[in-house]
């Protein structure tokens, strides 16, 4: 190598180092900017969270940013040494990738928290946080499990969703610090989908889903292998539906029907890989839960109308055939879901963990009748029976649809008060 060649190599190395330094400076600046969590969501939005949730989220986010800043600092030292510029460059690209992953995480939570900028929405969502976390705690505690904090956020669309606590986030490494539940605006009048979503968290923490999948496959296998495998694949959604039914009874079924309704083709369509039972089967299963636990009732009318609309005129499509098979097996399916002892529940059936009879229309009416006007003003009842009160309030608009708007307003006020941001005096005035 000539002297000029060595000089050229040195110059090249210096140039690469400077290039890397400039590139790294860019990403370090970007990473540093993420450290201000009040940019992720406004201070007002953060203040709308319950303190425990806020601390947990901020701590986790701060830890994620700190880890990335540390990685950037280490890379800075490597650039200085620059023994292997290619290796450093690969690490720089990894840093960029990790930055984008982190940004996705922060954006997700930032969006979720940011839905609380409006004080009224913040107060309402905080109430839903409390309802969701209390309901999880109520069921999980006797099973020796801790319920996670819940962050509820609001968006448009039809269906609710959950990002479960402790699932790996987009970086593939760090777990979600809270259960983040998406509610949709159209369902705020009957927000029982909240308990379908917490049902996913419940099933995950208890390990119920796998056991339920086996149970469903077992009871349906003698009727149809195809039916059995489909129900096995739907187990996670079935578990969530059963959870919502066990806590709230009938009102989640009507909310579900509104969301999954569609043309006959749509409600009979089987989408490969979809964990949800196709709509007709799902509605019929939920009405069967009501019938088998509560006896005859308005759910029978709903089931009959859905069958008349979609099954009586349907041909022999796969969906129609499987729906007919399902109708014949509903009793077995309900039995497997609610009465079969499960290891997940320490050998007890689901109905001993969450007794649907406590959420029957008659039981809810009894609760409301005993409490009288204090039902919606009592802070004690709001803590002791929050889900049943919500179920009763949600059911009011079903029983009295002419005044549904009034009932929905009452429900919103009560949920807001549960979040602790509304003076009980206002509720007393409403009750009076």
């Amino acid at each position: 190598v000539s002297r000029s060649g060595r000089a050229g190599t040195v110059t090249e190395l210096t140039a690469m180092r400077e290039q890397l330094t400039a590139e790294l400076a860019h990403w370090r600046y970007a990473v540093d900017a993420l450290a201000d969590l009040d940019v992720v969501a406004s201070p007002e939005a953060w203040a709308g969270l319950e303190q425990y949730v806020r601390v947990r989220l901020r701590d986790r986010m701060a830890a994620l940013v700190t880890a990335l800043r540390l990685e950037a600092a280490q890379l800075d030292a490597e650039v200085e040494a620059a023994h292997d510029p290619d290796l450093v460059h690969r690490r720089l690209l990894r840093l960029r990738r990790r930055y984008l992953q982190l940004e996705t995480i922060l954006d997700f939570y930032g969006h979720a928290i940011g839905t609380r900028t409006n004080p009224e929405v913040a107060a309402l969502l905080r109430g839903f946080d409390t309802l969701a976390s209390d309901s999880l705690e109520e069921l999980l505690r006797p099973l020796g499990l801790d319920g996670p904090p819940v962050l509820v956020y609001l968006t448009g669309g039809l269906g609710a969703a959950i990002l479960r606590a402790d699932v790996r986030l987009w970086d593939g490494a760090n777990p979600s610090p809270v259960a983040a539940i998406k509610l949709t605006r159209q369902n705020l009048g009957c927000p029982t989908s909240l308990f379908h979503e917490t049902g996913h968290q419940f099933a995950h923490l208890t390990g119920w889903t796998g056991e339920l999948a086996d149970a469903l496959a077992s009871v349906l296998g003698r009727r149809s292998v195809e039916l059995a495998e489909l129900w096995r694949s739907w187990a996670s959604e079935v578990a969530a539906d059963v959870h919502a039914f066990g806590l709230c009874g009938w009102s989640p079924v009507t909310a579900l029907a509104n969301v999954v309704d569609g043309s006959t083709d749509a409600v009979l369509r089987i989408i490969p890989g979809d964990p949800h039972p196709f709509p007709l089967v799902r509605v019929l299963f939920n009405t069967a839960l009501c019938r088998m636990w509560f006896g005859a009732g308005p759910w029978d009318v709903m089931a009959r109308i859905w069958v008349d609309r979609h099954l009586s005129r349907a041909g022999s499509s796969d969906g129609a055939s499987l729906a007919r098979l399902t109708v014949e097996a509903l009793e077995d399916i309900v039995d497997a879901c609610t009465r079969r002892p499960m290891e997940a529940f320490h050998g007890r059936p689901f109905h001993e963990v969450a007794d649907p009879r406590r959420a029957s229309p008659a039981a809810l009416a009894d609760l409301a009748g005993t409490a009288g006007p204090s039902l919606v003003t009592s802070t004690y009842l709001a803590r002791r029976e929050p889900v049943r009160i919500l179920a009763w309030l949600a059911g009011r608009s079903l029983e009295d649809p002419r005044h549904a708007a009034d009932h929905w307003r009452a429900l919103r006020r009560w949920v807001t008060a549960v979040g602790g941001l509304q003076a009980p005096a206002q509720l007393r005035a409403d009750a009076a």
Partner: protein
Amino acid sequence: MDQYSTAVDHEAAPEALAPGAYAPESISLSPFVGGVRPLSAPDRAETGDRAYEDRGSASLLASPFSTGLIDSAAPEAETAVTALLAEMGDEAFGEAVQALVDEAAGRQVTSAESWSSDRAAELPTGEVEAWMAGIAAQADQLLEHLELHFGDRTPESLSEGELEAVLNEALAAQGAPDLSGEGFLSALARRFGSVVKGVGNLARRGITAVATRLLGPLFRLVRQMVPSLLRSVLSIAFRNLPAEVQADATALAAKLGITLPSGAPAAPSAAPGEVLAELFDSQLAQAAITDNQAMADQLLNEWESAGAQDGGGAMARLDAARADLAEQLTAAAPGSDLSSELEQFIPAVMAALPLIRTGIGIYGRDKLVRLIARLLAQLIKSLTGMEATQALTRAIADKGLGLLRLEAENAAGSSQLGAEALVSTLEDTIRAVGHLPPESQEQPLRLQAEVQEAFAEAAARHMPSEMLRADLDAHEMEGESAVWVLMPRGSSRRYRYRKCSMIFPAHVSRQVARAIVLNDGGTLEQRFLDEGTTGWPVTAEVHLYETLPGTHLGHLAASEGERHGAGPLETSEFEELTSQTASLLFNQPGLGRAAAGRRYYRVVIPGRPGPARKRHRRAVVRLILTGPRPVMRVHLRLSEREAHRVGELLGQRADVRLVAVFRSLILGLAQRSLPGRIIRQVRRPPGLVLSDEQARTLGGAIGERMVAAVAAQLRAMGPALAAATRDPAPGITLTFEFGFADRAALIAGSPDAPSVTIRPGWHRD
């Protein structure tokens, strides 16, 4: 060789001592690591008498008010005042005034950070004064409303319910809760209502002193007294009132001519706002009875002078002195003698404690200050300078300060926490020494021993254990190490309380919760159940706090709420810590021992929002002496949970279980809180003497008759109980009204069978 074993300034020390009385052969031994001689650990006296709230001597009091305006030659008027005072015995007014004190204190401390950080200045008061002016305006409008309605009427002319209706109307006009509300305006309206009704009763009984008196002049006088009351509230909150006005209620009552019998049992200690309310009551009662414009003018002048008094900014000077000394400790060269700096600091500590001032006057203030300064300077020599205070800061940071969220202060080599720990150690030592009786302060050896002992104890509270000698036996905790950190943190460095760096995890079983009695007369078990607990044990965190001179619970409530990004907490969340509670909750009885200040604790259940509303007092006792026979009303106030339980049992027609529920509630209260409540009521009017034993007997008799009344009248009460449990108002009140043949029957604990009234909501009329 360790510098402490011989670090004696033989030339300087004797100067401060009585000639020939003292040879300082073994000046104070340091408790820090490296001390070669173990500290002796003689039996330490209980330190309860060292608490700031020590109100041991009524003789120190000099009320700014008259010693009684009732002429001794006018026994009828005196009797009338006595009866009226008894009728005004509703403690809610005192609680409401104290709540104002707490809120004012909290508002001041939370507004401090947005103001100048000039530590020489007083904490900002403008915002708080503006807030209080709003309350004063509301109160005045309320009273004006009453004056317009009743100014030309006599009390005896008012018909049943007429007064209450107008009072509620006046409250509604101010947007305030009605007469059953807990706020100040409701309490003031109730207080005024009770005075008017009491005077009316007296007039109907033929007491000529109050007969045919128009209410107009009384209303006008009260309208002038209330602003002075509110100014006094601010003075107490800002800790500006002279110590004499902040004395305990018993002594104050004595100064006001409300003579207490010498054998009377000590009533539960009253908060400063409650003392102020009692003072207001006594003047109000006298004003209501006194038909004499000159006397009324005198009352007014006294009130106005009380409201205007200023204690001279002792707290601001102490704030500044703490900050100065912390900086001096950091800036000093390692091993410096800071005697002269301590000589500046000691008077600031002493000025905040009037009892110390008195003692020092006897011995010789300057000499004592110099001696204490020199002793302390020797003890802290090894910890002066930036390096030492930084090391101390790091050691403290390791003690779980993350729980206090002080990470930012620990960053970048800060020395503040370490220096402040030293300052706290010194301050507590000075305070402990200052509480010595004057004769002990005159004995240098005794004084030296006291300094050494107090310093060791204070160091054990404020320094991490690894900074202390292994053989030191002054630790409060067993197997753990924690420190007490000055709060609230902020750039202004105006500290109003301390918080323990350790947050104690607690798994509270039902039995333990049942054994812990709270201020509201209930138990921790009842509180947990009321808040929705369904399973046991309850996993909770226990936060500990310690008062400083000038601490109000409002400071804790505001600062702790703000730290968590919430509004102020309820002061009722803070419960006084005893050794028994500390032992039961987290097995550290030493932390419940009285230390430099009072200790409080707060139980937090992680993930659960705080109490939705202020906790209600479970039993309220009223003693009425304005009628021909003594009457005692006991309001049993059921929580929402208890009310719903009663509703459920009524629905099930489970009469036996229902009586059992009431039996448990009533007898528990009769044992825990009724005797104390009865004593507080009985002590107000002179002439009534009730010993602890008699109060217990009376409480027991009342409790038994309450249970018997419920059992006998359960069927008849059913519909009213059921309606009350369904009412939107929180909880229900069962009012038991007992008549007594005469005062002797009251003292003997022989009540008649009570009448029972049931109402939704919580009442205390």
